[in-house]
């Protein structure tokens, strides 16, 4: 049902407290949809037709606002408006003047943050979770165990949500009964899967799937109007989500869905969200049992026609289902052919993206960054696992385990974890954007007996400079890694208030050269954070680090600084780090900062 058909509602201050009990029973929901910074839709079903009313307020027992409609129905759709952004409300649902359920701690909703606000956001996503029973319950309960009292902000269903044919009755048990607690507090989004298409016609948009969910058709939750509930986009904080319909997969690059997709991405690019996350059912890369992305036409078409557009505009992560397993790709770009055509050039980074493994994947730019790598996840083991080879070469991880995926977005960091049905995290990848230093120094870094820091702040910024030397310490090549190859390094200087100067040097910079017992980086153009020279001399007790940056790009702050001072070099992939900590300075005024060890 499109939002256009949502009835008109009026919000009034509640003048009287209901006294009579309703004869109706809530048989589905309540469940939440289409959250924006100022509105949300509350839906529920009753066994007999009644009027509709949502009472809401800041705390249980004080639901002082209501939105209602007098028309009698069993399918209740109430849109709450004029809400405050990123704000929690408690609510009840019922007929006018007669609440049926709610007004307690379990019936609460939170509006979305204002679009563009980088608020920490959690998304819980399950795929092919349509078989009811012990498996599905275990996956659900594992998330509850893992998350504890911290709610998800969004609940995403990746299609095939109710087996076998997505009927209303099957949805009742697999989705609305199984996830009742999640649904009454967390807005739900979904993509259409092949089993939904068995009972709901994606061509005519008629059937239980389209009846039970309210999705945007006119850009109501961000993005531009698609004109259909089968594909659309929405914003949540600093994330732009794109939902595509792989049941009506494009057969050329100019279908209405792809024309809309490009226009939507152009619009997103101008708004510059921090992240783009795409969702659909049939995966572009998979070797699931009976679902081979080299064979199934819809998968091939999504890969061939939709992926180039998404990557042109900087998609970060794609979540799909369909194969009843978990598969997770390398950090990929521009792989649009069959599996055998994958080459090393398609791997933006060959590592695993795990902060505890090879280190996070990194993108130089904040915001959207085209063709800078994306991770593709097949999250289809929500209620069943099917034994298969999982040997698609684009996939780094393949697991035959029941589970779900938790996505945490926090500023310039996106972390996704596969949580199995025993509440164990079995895969993690992280994408970090930007090249700024972390907000606080790393801990456990190796010190050296000698060190020196100099910072010069000139009225002419082009004459600014800073340098750090670390001398007579232990520095080895294994710890430093291969910055010309895969290693990301950070060179940063902190005072008591945080970062002063420096930044991240992403892997692969051609300015790195080796010499007999070390590495040297030389960039006369000062293109990265004003860094002109980094010299790393390996040795035990004789190792040294020399860093020299200058010019406006060095972004030297106003002096003096607040001591103590910490200078660090950090291998962002393996966590090794080296530092000089200065409790005092020999000079710390408006022009110069000098500090030395011992």
């Amino acid at each position, binding site marked *: 049902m499109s939002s256009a058909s949502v009835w008109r509602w009026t919000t009034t201050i509640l003048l009287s407290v209901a006294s009579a009990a309703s004869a109706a029973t809530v048989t589905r929901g309540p469940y939440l949809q289409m959250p924006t910074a100022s509105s949300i839709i509350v839906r529920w079903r009753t066994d007999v037709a009644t009027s509709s009313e949502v009472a809401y307020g800041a705390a249980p027992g004080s639901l002082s606002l209501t939105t209602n409609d007098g028309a009698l129905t069993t399918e209740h759709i109430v849109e709450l408006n004029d809400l405050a952004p990123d704000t929690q409300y408690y609510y009840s649902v019922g007929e006018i003047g007669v609440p049926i359920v709610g007004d307690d701690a379990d019936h609460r909703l939170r509006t979305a943050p204002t679009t563009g606000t980088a608020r920490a956001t959690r998304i819980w996503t399950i795929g092919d979770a349509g078989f009811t029973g012990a498996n599905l319950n275990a996956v659900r309960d594992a998330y509850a165990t893992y998350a504890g009292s911290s709610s998800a902000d969004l609940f995403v269903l990746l299609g095939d949500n109710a087996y*076998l044919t997505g009927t209303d009755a099957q949805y009742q048990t697999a989705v609305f009964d199984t996830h009742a607690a999640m649904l009454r507090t967390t807005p739900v989004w979904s993509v259409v899967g092949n089993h939904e298409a068995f009972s709901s016609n994606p061509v005519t948009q008629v059937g239980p799937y389209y009846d039970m969910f309210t999705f945007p058709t006119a850009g109501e939750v961000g993005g531009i109007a698609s004109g259909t509930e089968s594909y659309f986009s929405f914003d949540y904080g600093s994330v732009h989500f794109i939902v595509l319909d792989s049941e009506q997969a494009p057969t050329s690059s100019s279908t*209405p869905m792809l*024309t809309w997709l490009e226009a939507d991405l152009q619009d997103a*690019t101008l708004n510059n969200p921090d992240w783009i996350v795409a969702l659909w059912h049939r995966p572009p890369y998979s070797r699931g049992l009976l679902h081979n992305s080299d064979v199934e036409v819809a998968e091939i078409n999504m890969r061939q026609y939709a992926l180039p557009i998404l990557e042109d505009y900087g998609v970060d992560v794609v979540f799909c289902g369909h194969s009843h397993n978990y598969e997770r790709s390398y950090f990929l770009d521009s792989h649009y052919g069959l599996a055998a055509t994958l080459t090393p050039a398609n791997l933006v980074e060959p590592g695993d993206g795990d902060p505890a493994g090879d280190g996070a994947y990194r993108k130089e730019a904040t915001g959207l*960054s085209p063709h800078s790598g994306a991770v593709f996840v097949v999250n289809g083991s929500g209620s069943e696992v099917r034994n298969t080879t999982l040997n698609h070469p684009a996939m780094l991880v393949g697991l035959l385990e029941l589970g779900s995926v938790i996505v945490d977005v926090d500023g310039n960091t996106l972390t996704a974890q596969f949580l199995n049905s025993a509440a164990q995290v079995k895969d993690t990848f992280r994408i970090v954007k930007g090249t700024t230093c972390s907000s606080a120094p790393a801990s456990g870094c190796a010190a050296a007996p000698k060190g020196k820091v100099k910072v010069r702040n000139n009225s002419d910024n082009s004459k600014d400079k800073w340098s750090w030397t670390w001398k007579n310490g232990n520095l080895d090549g294994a710890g430093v890694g291969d910055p010309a190859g895969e290693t990301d390094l950070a060179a940063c200087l902190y005072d008591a208030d945080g970062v002063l100067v420096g930044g991240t040097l992403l892997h692969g910079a051609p300015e790195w050269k080796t010499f007999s017992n070390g590495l040297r980086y030389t960039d006369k153009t000062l293109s990265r954070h004003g860094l002109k020279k980094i010299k790393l001399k390996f040795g035990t007790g004789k190792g040294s680090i020399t860093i020299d940056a200058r010019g406006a790009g060095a972004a030297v702050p106003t002096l003096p600084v607040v001591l103590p001072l910490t200078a660090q070099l950090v291998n962002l992939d393996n966590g090794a780090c080296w530092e000089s900590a200065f409790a005092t300075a020999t000079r710390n005024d408006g022009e110069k900062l000098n500090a030395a060890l011992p």
Partner: protein
Amino acid sequence: MDELKHDAVDAVASRPRDPAAHLQRARVHRLAEEWPTALAELGRAESLGADADEVGALRAAVLLDAGQAESALREIDRVLARRPDAAGLRFERGRICLALGQTEQAAREFGDAIAALPAPRPEHVMARRDALLAIGRRADALLALDEGMARVGRVASLQLAAVELEVELGRYDGALRRLDQLLAPRPNPAWVARRGDILARAGRRDAARAEYTRALALLEGRSGKRPAKGFDELRRRLEFELHSASTQEAKQ
């Protein structure tokens, strides 16, 4: 698919006299592209008292998929005679007409379906446009897009298609007005550049240059951020267009 087949087989085994079980099995065989088996199951469902309209609609779809468009047409017409209000079937009839080469009739069926469907998709509207274009009726195709947008909303996928048709018909002001409607809420540089292209094609070079400059300014408003590939190409093209215009002006 195997799972669906097992489920359908089990359902028929446990409820052999239940027409719904046979209908379900027919649907599964259709998905598996097993046309004769699907048609046989539909026959059984019908003989057991399944809803004749449901059986007929599904049989028509199976026949169309199986390449038997004439039989599909006869079947769907039988259903439509009883259910003339079934908009989904009306669209299906359009597809059958297309398969039979009756393109003009297909366009009519699509139009009727779009008018009657509770929530038509942009794809429906484009199907009607394509049918009309296939028989050379560009002005009617443009009208079809407008009628479709009256139902679906002024979505970019349809409005941009209408822009291109306006240009093909030489109606440059109409094309510009449509782009203005798209641009009103959102200043997309690609659409501003398209305005420039249309103005240039209409011989309004100064106005075209102004639009190219505006598009470039919108792109540069994103300075410091790595450009999307599509926007990067657009930027280069705009710079080329503006350079060409300056060169021409200097020659004159």
